[in-house]
């Protein structure tokens, strides 16, 4: 990869994350949701893998913690879904209920549905980045193994 591709790829990571968080947040007044945000964030990390190579991309702080992040996202989503059961309400009843007044943080509304979406975002991001990382590691191991095998073969041929 040329130097310019690598430099631009490094610069693009943070703006891609910001776009994905924006899509997550604006889903309540226009188009957007947690799943799309997770996919776009994954694409940012995938860009690092293809442009910089897996060894360097693996060193990103997010990639090492990605699978656990995914499970934490699943725990958040499950707790939002199942906590109303403890209060006697059906599953996935959101608080505040539809029609009631909502707390606002600027123009963002504070709802349990937002927490659910963040859980989905973390889940998708963690799962996809974890998978990409595992495949890249396995691929590197395989290439190293093939290199070692062919080296052994060469040494054996020379000995003969």
């Amino acid at each position: 990869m040329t130097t310019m591709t690598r430099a631009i790829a490094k610069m693009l990571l943070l703006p891609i994350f910001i776009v994905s968080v924006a899509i997550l947040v604006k889903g309540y007044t226009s188009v957007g949701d947690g799943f799309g945000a997770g996919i776009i964030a994954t694409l940012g990390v995938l860009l690092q893998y293809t442009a910089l190579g897996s060894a360097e991309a693996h060193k990103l702080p997010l990639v090492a913690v990605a699978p656990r992040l995914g499970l934490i996202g699943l725990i958040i989503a499950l707790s939002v879904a199942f906590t109303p059961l403890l209060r006697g309400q059906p599953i996935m009843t959101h608080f505040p209920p539809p029609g009631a007044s909502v707390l606002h943080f600027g123009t963002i509304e504070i709802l349990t549905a937002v927490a659910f979406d963040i859980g989905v975002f973390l889940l998708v991001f963690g799962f996809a980045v974890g998978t990409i990382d595992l495949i890249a590691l396995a691929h590197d191991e395989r290439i190293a193994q093939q290199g070692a095998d062919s080296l052994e073969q060469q040494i054996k041929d020379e000995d003969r």
Partner: protein
Amino acid sequence: MILTPLLIAWVMAVILALLDGRRIWVGWLAIGAMAGVFLTTLRLTIRVIEHGSLEIVAGGWPLGLGITLRADALGTVFALVSSGVLLVALIYEVLAGVHERAMPALTLFLATGLTGLFFTGDAFNFYVFFEITMTASFVLTTYGQREREMRAALIFMVVNLLGSSLFLSAIASLYHLTGTLDMRALTAIAGSLEQNSVTFTSILIFVAFCIKLGLFPFHFWLPPVYRDSWPAVAAILSGAVANVGSYGLLRFGGMILERELQLNGGALIALGAASILYGAVQAVSVRTVGEALAYSAIGQAGYILLALGIGGPVGIGAAILFALINSINKTLLFLTTGLNGWLVGAAFAIGAFSVAGVPPSLGFFGKVALFQIGITAQNTLLLVIIFLGSALSFIYMFQIYQRAHWAVDHPEQPSRRPSRLLVLGVGILIIALGLWPEPLLLLSQRATDLVIGTP
């Protein structure tokens, strides 16, 4: 109350995914969680039998608007048997030593998917839990991670993804025709729709569930997968995941698309008969135990379809009873394939008697119900086919017993005692249920009343 099994299964699955499944205490934690699921499902079953169906709507929305979760007799009896099968298979695997860190978590995710599937009253929610179940079973098939298991997982996955896509298209067309996804509303409306469009939908649903169950023209994925996967995983697949196929045919065919089921009964009977004969004949001439049991599973699925094709109270009752008995039998048979010892041979013989329908084992009542439908339909050919299938299953079961357990040239070391005792325990359970079948018969009778009694 309905959601307690689902809650336990899902939360414990996530917690177990964070732990290392190879340690003993994690395995026993998983067994505890699975036992919790089974016991809460049992409590729910008793409650449903005494008080009738329970339902709640997710999110507190009005009925018909939100996703309904309904525990009725049909769903709870299938959920009870499936969680029992998963519990036994998990205990077997933990006793034998788990060698992959994700296996207990995967079994609990499978339990989540199955529990959600049997307790939902919304067609699309059924599809979502169906996919959760299938994903967990795809990954479980790779347990062992050698060439054979990976190949089996690949075949399993490609064929079943196709089946799921067909099912999703069918749900979408049902929504287009009726404007609702709620199962109760669908049951009310589907009888009065124009026939041609509903026929297309019902064919897609039928094919999707037949792929899952492993019926004759759609069975080609089944022998490699059941033969090459680990015994506990094969027991889970044949005892719990195949139940999805029979439950789907009963719920979507017997309740929602009832008119189509009755109109096409002849085709179902023909396919069922073909499946019985094909499975039985193939099972007589195979090389390995796993393959014979796989073809046996194909044959037994044919009986379920035969019973559904005849329909009516007798037919539907026979289908439900036979599906439940078959899953218990197959669990026992697949679990014995991985162990040595004469106790294991005895347990296999009990399972063989149950498949062939010999009293006092549980399979006798399944066969009685099947012969009853032959007599009710007053069709001699059907009786001949059922009898032929039973005779052939007797032959191949005892052929396997003879070659694998009795006349063995090099008898090997018996396996560990707890595993052998577990398998013998399941065999004794089959005989005990055969001597006291009232609970199972009552449950299947209630389920039949539910399926027949809808307007």
